[in-house]
Structure formats: structure tokens, C-alpha cells
């Protein structure tokens, strides 16, 4: 009996104009958009490659260890085509330097030249699903019960020995099947376009992630279908059901996500806290500077000069860099002497001695300030943002968006992974310097007796987290969506069982 019901519903749905329209619109939008997004991805990839090349070039040209810092770059995420998340917006290049611990808040942007064009908003595939599929689900659902009640066919069906739960299940299954067709077709086309683009290489893990996105889309779709069904079961006229569904859709998809963040200002004034932490960090660096001054006073060279009166050709620098808004504070000192004249050769050991003392001290201070800074950044920046995200999740759209971002790895955690890798790489570089005893070496500041050797320096590499991690991040929202599904289904069931036809 159930199969008969399903078949009837399926035929009913498949032959409608709305189904044809859904398929057509989804295909049109997804294909047009994927082509555009692939182009955009390729541009970003080209920028990334150029940046990596120039940074490597710069490192090779550097003749002393201290003369500058290394830069690591974040490659664009190919899955950002599905949900761009924060991938395009946050910095994608960060300096790795022994004197400070890199974070997201220190990152810069390479190849950020088309800022004018950003006045046009960009759309990703998940956004299309968010808008069009939810609309479709409601359009499929609004007359499922109310329509049959109006037409009288519901009464007719119930004269047969059919369970009401079967009718409901049949409606749900067939409508979901009908909605799946445009979803899967458009996604398949998008994936075909992706794989045929030469620049994008998708691995097995990426296909699993895309599978996760499909699964989440399905659950999201089901929420909207059930909402439509609920409205349809509770109203008596299809006209009312339709109107109500459309306003629910407009509110959840269009109005709520944009309104709530504007209305609730979660960025309460963080300035006093920022100031307090910044002065704490500043004190640590001032202590560092005092210690440095003491060392210079006590060493056999008179005065506090740090280039030790070396007659030289090249450059040297020492400065504190600070930015109170992002709590950045660090000390940078380095030198590049091309040649050192005879007269000052005797000073070289003193300079070596100084750097041997200075660099480990800098590293220690950086580690100490990092402990304070990490906590503060978490409090000042991450927490308000996560309050915002929680607010957005009061609408299924927000949950869906968050879950797909987690699958694609373009959420905040996915971006933070890169900076974790950068911090790890910094540790590797420091270890490398320790191993080679680079701080006390002549090459730290001077290239007169052979240049610094960068050839054995480990390369930076960043692998996006594996699917398991993505899944773990996406699962809470996915479960939430599932629970909503279940709750809605039970409510609809109870209402439908008890309702008079």
C-alpha cells in the first residue's frame, strides 16, 4: 500500500510545472555560477603561486639569517566554490619570525588588488541551495495536505484502509525524492565542471567532503519541506498555507540572518580589556629591553651600540613593532653586512656574543607574551564572533551554512588550522636555527665570510585537515538539523492523526 501511495505522489509531483521549473533554475544557476567561481578560484590560485615564488626568491637572496623574515602563504581552498566562508576574506600570508608568534590577526593579503570589484557580492553554490532549494521545498509542501483536503481527495483516500502515517510517509518520501533530483543533478554538473577544470585537482577526501555537503543539503531541504508540511497540516486553505510559507521563507532566509546581527551588537566595547592586556604585554617587552640593556652595559664593549662600531657595508635594524588593536607587539633586530673592514674584525666576536644572548631571549619573551595574547585574542575577537554565529543558528539557514563551511574547511577553525601550521613551522625554523647554532654564528648578521645557507631549511607545507576532522566540526550542526527534522515530523504526525478531514 505504501508503495502505491508513493508512486501516486511521485507521479503527481514529477508531472508538475514546479518540478520542471526547479530543475531548470537549479541547473542554470549552478552551472553559470560554478563557471564564474572556477575562474575566480584560478585567479586566486595564480596569485598564490606568484606569492610563493616571490617569497622563495626573497629567502634565497637573503645572505644573513637575521636580515628579514620568512613568509608563508595560504593556498585557496578548492571547496570554497561550494561555500566560500572566510576563505577569501581573511589574510592569506603571514610572516614567520623567531621574535613573534603568528596568528590570523597578523596575516596580510597577497594579490588583493581588485578591492573595487568587491562591491559586487559573490555567490557560492551553497547559497544557491540555501535560497532556491528551501523555496522549492516549501512550494512542494504547502498544498500537500491542505490542497488534498480542499480537493476532497484526502477524504477519498482515507475511505480505503490506509494508515494516516503511511500517507504522511508517502508524501514525505516522494517529495524528497523529487527535490533530490535537481539537487543531485546540479551538484553532479558542478563536480564535472570542477574536475574538468585543469587547475583544480580534487582528491578522494574532497569527494567525501562534497558528499558531506550533499548530505547536509538533504537534511536542510527536509527541514524546509517539513516546515511547509506543518503549515499545510495546520491551515485549512491552500492560499493561507502558501502565504504563510512564503513569509516564513522570506523571514528565515532573507530577513533574519541579516537583521539579527545588525540588531544585536555583540561587539561590546572591548577597549578596556584590550588596553589592559596590551600594557601587560608591553611590560614583558620592556623587561626584555631592560635585560638587553643590562647585557650591553656589562659586556666589554663600551656604550650601548648594537652594531659594535663595525665598519660595514649593508644595513641593520632594530625596532619594536606594535599594534594595540590586535595586541601585536614584538621586537625585530637584524643585520646584513656585506663586508666588514679589517679594523673591526676584532668586534665580530662581541656581536656574535650579543646575538647569541639576544635571540633566545627574544624567543622566550615571545613565548611568554603569546600565552597572554592567545587568551586575549580568544576573548576579544573569537568569542563575539561565535556569539554571532550562534545567533545565526536560530535559523536553519545558519546551521546549514555553518555545517557546509565546516565540511568545506572554510570555517574559522579551518582557517585557524593554517595558522596552527604556521606556528608549528616557526618552531621548526627555530629548532633548525638551534641545530645549526645559527644565533651565535657569523652568518647571523654578516655575509662577509660566506652567506647563510638556506638550502636545508625545511619547507613549509600545509595540508587541510582530514575528512574526519571536518566531519567532527560539521556534525553538531548536522545533528541539530536532524533533531529539528525529527521534532517537526513528530509534531506533524500528531497533528495529522488528530485532525478532522
Amino acid at each position: 500500500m505504501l508503495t502505491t501511495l508513493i508512486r501516486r505522489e511521485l507521479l503527481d509531483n514529477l508531472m508538475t510545472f514546479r518540478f520542471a521549473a526547479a530543475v531548470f533554475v537549479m541547473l542554470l544557476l549552478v552551472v553559470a555560477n560554478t563557471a564564474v567561481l572556477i575562474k575566480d578560484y584560478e585567479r586566486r590560485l595564480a596569485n598564490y603561486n606568484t606569492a610563493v615564488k616571490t617569497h622563495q626568491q626573497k629567502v634565497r637572496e637573503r645572505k644573513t639569517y637575521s636580515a628579514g623574515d620568512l613568509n608563508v602563504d595560504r593556498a585557496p581552498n578548492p571547496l570554497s566554490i561550494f561555500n566560500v566562508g572566510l576563505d577569501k576574506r581573511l589574510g592569506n600570508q603571514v610572516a614567520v619570525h623567531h621574535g613573534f608568534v603568528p596568528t590570523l590577526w597578523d596575516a596580510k593579503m597577497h594579490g588583493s588588488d581588485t578591492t573595487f570589484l568587491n562591491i559586487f557580492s559573490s555567490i557560492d553554490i551553497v547559497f544557491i541551495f540555501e535560497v532556491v532549494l528551501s523555496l522549492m521545498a516549501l512550494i512542494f509542501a504547502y498544498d500537500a495536505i491542505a490542497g488534498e483536503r480542499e480537493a476532497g481527495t484526502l477524504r477519498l483516500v482515507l475511505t480505503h484502509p490506509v494508515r494516516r502515517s503511511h500517507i504522511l510517509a508517502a508524501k514525505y518520501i516522494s517529495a524528497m525524492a523529487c527535490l533530490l533530483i535537481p539537487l543531485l543533478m546540479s551538484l553532479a554538473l558542478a563536480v564535472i565542471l570542477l574536475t574538468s577544470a585543469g587547475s583544480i585537482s580534487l582528491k578522494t577526501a574532497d569527494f567525501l567532503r562534497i558528499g558531506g555537503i550533499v548530505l547536509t543539503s538533504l537534511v536542510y531541504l527536509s527541514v524546509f519541506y517539513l516546515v511547509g508540511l506543518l503549515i499545510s497540516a495546520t491551515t485549512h486553505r491552500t492560499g493561507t498555507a502558501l502565504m504563510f510559507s512564503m513569509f516564513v521563507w522570506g523571514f528565515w532566509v532573507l530577513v533574519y540572518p541579516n537583521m539579527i546581527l545588525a540588531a544585536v551588537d555583540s561587539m561590546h566595547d572591548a577597549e578596556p580589556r584590550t588596553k589592559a592586556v596590551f600594557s601587560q604585554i608591553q611590560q614583558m617587552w620592556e623587561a626584555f629591553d631592560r635585560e638587553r640593556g643590562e647585557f650591553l652595559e656589562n659586556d666589554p664593549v663600551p656604550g650601548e651600540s648594537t652594531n659594535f662600531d663595525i665598519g660595514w657595508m649593508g644595513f641593520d635594524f632594530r625596532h619594536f613593532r606594535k599594534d594595540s588593536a590586535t595586541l601585536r607587539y614584538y621586537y625585530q633586530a637584524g643585520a646584513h653586512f656585506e663586508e666588514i673592514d679589517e679594523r673591526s674584525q676584532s668586534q665580530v666576536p662581541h656581536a656574535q656574543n650579543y646575538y647569541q644572548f639576544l635571540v633566545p631571549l627574544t624567543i622566550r619573551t615571545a613565548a611568554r607574551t603569546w600565552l597572554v595574547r592567545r587568551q586575549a585574542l580568544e576573548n576579544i575577537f573569537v568569542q563575539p564572533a561565535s556569539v554571532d554565529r550562534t545567533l545565526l543558528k536560530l535559523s536553519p539557514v545558519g546551521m546549514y551554512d555553518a555545517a557546509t563551511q565546516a565540511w568545506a574547511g572554510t570555517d574559522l577553525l579551518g582557517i585557524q588550522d593554517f595558522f596552527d601550521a604556521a606556528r608549528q613551522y616557526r618552531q621548526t625554523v627555530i629548532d633548525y636555527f638551534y641545530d645549526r647554532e645559527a644565533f651565535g654564528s657569523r652568518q647571523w648578521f654578516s655575509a662577509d665570510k660566506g652567506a647563510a645557507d638556506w638550502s636545508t631549511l625545511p619547507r613549509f607545507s600545509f595540508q587541510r585537515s582530514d575528512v574526519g576532522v571536518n566531519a567532527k566540526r560539521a556534525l553538531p550542526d548536522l545533528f541539530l538539523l536532524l533533531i529539528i527534522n525529527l521534532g517537526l515530523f513528530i509534531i506533524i504526525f500528531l497533528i495529522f492523526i488528530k485532525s478532522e478531514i
Partner: protein
Amino acid sequence: MIWHITKRELYDNLNSLRFTLATVLLLGLMLTNAVVHLREHPKRIQKYHASVRESLKDLTSRADDSLYEIAQQGPGLLHKKPSPLHFCAEGGEAFLSDVVGGAFLWSISGGLNGFWRLNYPSATPNLTNIRPDVTKVDWVFIIGYVLSLIALLFTFDSVSGERERGTLRLMLANPIPRHTVLTGKFLGALISINIPFTLAVLMNLLVISTSSDVHLGTEIWERLGIIFLIAVLYTCLFIALGLLVSARVQRSAVGLVMLLLAWAIFVVFMPSILATIASGFSSPMTSDELWARRGELYRERWARYDAHLPAESESSKRMRFEGEHVIQEATEQERLSEAHLAQKIGQVKFARAITRVSPVAIVHHLLEAFAGTGFERHLQFVENTRRYARHFREFVVDTDRADAESLHIIGVREGMSQKSVSPAAIPKFEDTLSLSRDFNTAAVDVLLLTLFVIVLLSSTYLAFVRVEI
């Protein structure tokens, strides 16, 4: 008779669920908009005034030195004045730089310094912002997205619904011309949509104007009036579309599906997809290329300077040469920045022209134009700074000419007037917004929108007159 039908439609709508929901939705949005504006606008104004003061202080401190110092260092950064109608159209201001000026001045040789030239920095994106990205709730959003959706929801069943119920046949049995019915329906829908909208707008303006931080002058009210009229014209477009589809289809549900999909395509997706495609057609100089070109120009200039520099003995000739050299260098570099800016503007202009296929883009442009925000406003600002730069340079030349002791060689310290300049005499930059200019830029968009409305209305008329009931 028209009034009769209009009134009937009006009563029908006023009692409906959609009217209540639309009112609640619009009021909520408009209130949010007002509250956000009151929270953020004072900060914006404060920031603007603080930075203008800063530039002014720089300029007056230089005035104490000499004319050379003023001409060489320039007037400091020129700031864009924030519009008081920011709540109407946010205009992507985060991506448009709000300053012009301040190029890094290379020193050319020993005593020669590069002269002040206009430079157009691009906006620095906020890379530390990890909050979720959402559309700003401004009037563009409320009118462009929400109001258009509401207009469709009010009209999708106005003809087909009556046909389904049979009341249309009943009505046409009376001696009423069809176009009267259509006009009545149109007016009824227009009025019933504009009641909640007007209410929401008034509420919004009431909240905004009660605050002491925001001053709305007469010109502002004129602008608001124009914006309101544009919104009405825009709703006419969607009402006409709704009536057209409703007259053509047999079942209102099918009509709604068609309308909603058309709405999603034209309003939500079309502007950004078209803009992205259109901006791919041209590729302006990247900043790397710009810097390479700058370096090249600079080296060329250097080489020419070295090759043609007159000997030490011909001191006046040498000084004249050096002055010319400095001025030419500044002109060259400024021309390069301008070329780069022009390329970027051309790209965006083309993309904007293409997006005019979508009515929401037209409304977006119009609201930006009259609110004094967004891209066209940015171009006006750039134009203002250019005019000011000309004015500033004329001032330098005139002041120098007024001093009889000066050698009148602009570009070299010794060649220019040594008298100190009174700070009050130096022209100050004041960014302005003018309504007549906004009209000119908006004319095309207004015409296009009107054209859309007329085409849709006439096709609705044709469709309704010929349709079988």
C-alpha cells in the same frame, strides 16, 4: 468605477494575512535599520572630523615654514565626507577608499625632493574581521529584496485567483471595460503595498530624526522624497510583473512558482553573476604591475636628469632644469595613478552597466546616487579632489608670483618665494555632495526603470484584454 474596484481590492488586501505579515516584516526591518544607523553614524562622523582636523593641523604646521614646504608636502590626506543618508544605501563603502592623497615622495637627488601628487590608495580590507558576513540591512535591501517579494506575494493571484473562484467572470458581466478592472487592481495593489511601506518609512525617519546626533536638512528631505518615489516606481514594476503572470496562467500556484523563480534569478542571483562575468572581460593593471611601472618611470627620469643636467657654473639654468624635472616627475607619476584608477573604474562601470538588466541593480544604483554613497559618489569624491588639486597648485603658483623677490622656479627650494604663508590663505579641501549632479548620473537609471515599468504594464494590459476568462 475604477475607484470602486480599487476600494474593493484594498479592503480585500487589508484584511488578509499577507498584509499583517508584510507590515510586521517591514516595520521590523526599518526599525533595525534606524537603530543601527543611530548607533553607527555618530562614530562615522566623529572619525571623519577627527581625520580632517588631523590633515588640517598638518597643513597649518607646514604653513609656518615656507611656500616650498607647502607645495612639496601637499595638503595632506583628503577625506571623503560620510553621507547622512548612509542608512538608505550602504553602498559597499568598506571596499571604496575614503581618502585620496599622500603618495610616498621619493627624493630625487641631494637637494631635490619629489613634489606632492594625487594618489589613489585602494581601500584596505579588514582582515581581522572574523564575524560572519551578512548583507547590511539598508533601504536598498529592504526595498530591493523584501518589498519586491511582498509586491509579488500581493499580486500573484489577483487575476488568476479571481478566475479560479469565478468572480472575475461575474465582474466582467457588468458593463466594465477590462482596462478599468486592470487599472483598479493595479491601484489597489499599489496602495495596499505602500501603506505598510510608508508606515515603516515614517517610523524609520521618526526614530532617526529624534536623535540629536543626526541632522536632516531640507536637501536631505528632498533626497528622501526622491528615494521614496523610486521605491514606489520599483513596486509598480513588480506589481505589473505579478499582474502579467497572473493574467497569463490558469492556476495561481503555477503563477507564484514562476514569479518566485523569476524573482530569485533577477533579484538575488543576476546582479552578482553578471557583474562577475562582466568584470572578467577587462583586466586592469595589478598593483605589482603598477609598482613596476612606477619604478621604471622613476629610473627613466633619473637617467634623463643625469644626462641633461647643466653644469654647476650655469646655476640659474641648472635650477630651472631641476624645477622642471621635479614638476614633470610628479605629473608623470600622477598620470600613471590616474591611468590605473581609470582602468579600475572602467572595469567596474562596465560591470555595473551590464547588471542593469536586473531591476534590483537599477534601484541599488539609484538609491546609492541619491543617498550619496557607493561607487558614483566615490567618483564624485575623486573628481572633487582633482579640482582641489588644481586649485591648490594654482594657489602655489599665484603666491609665488605675488612675491617679487622670488625667482619663480617652482620645484626648487631656492627658486621659490621665501615668505611665510598665512595658513588662512591656503585653500582647504571640503568634500561636497550636490543633488543636481546626482540627478545627472541617475537619469539613465530612472529612464531604464520607467521603461521597464511601461513595457511590463502594456504587456499586462495586452495579456489581460485578450485572455479568455
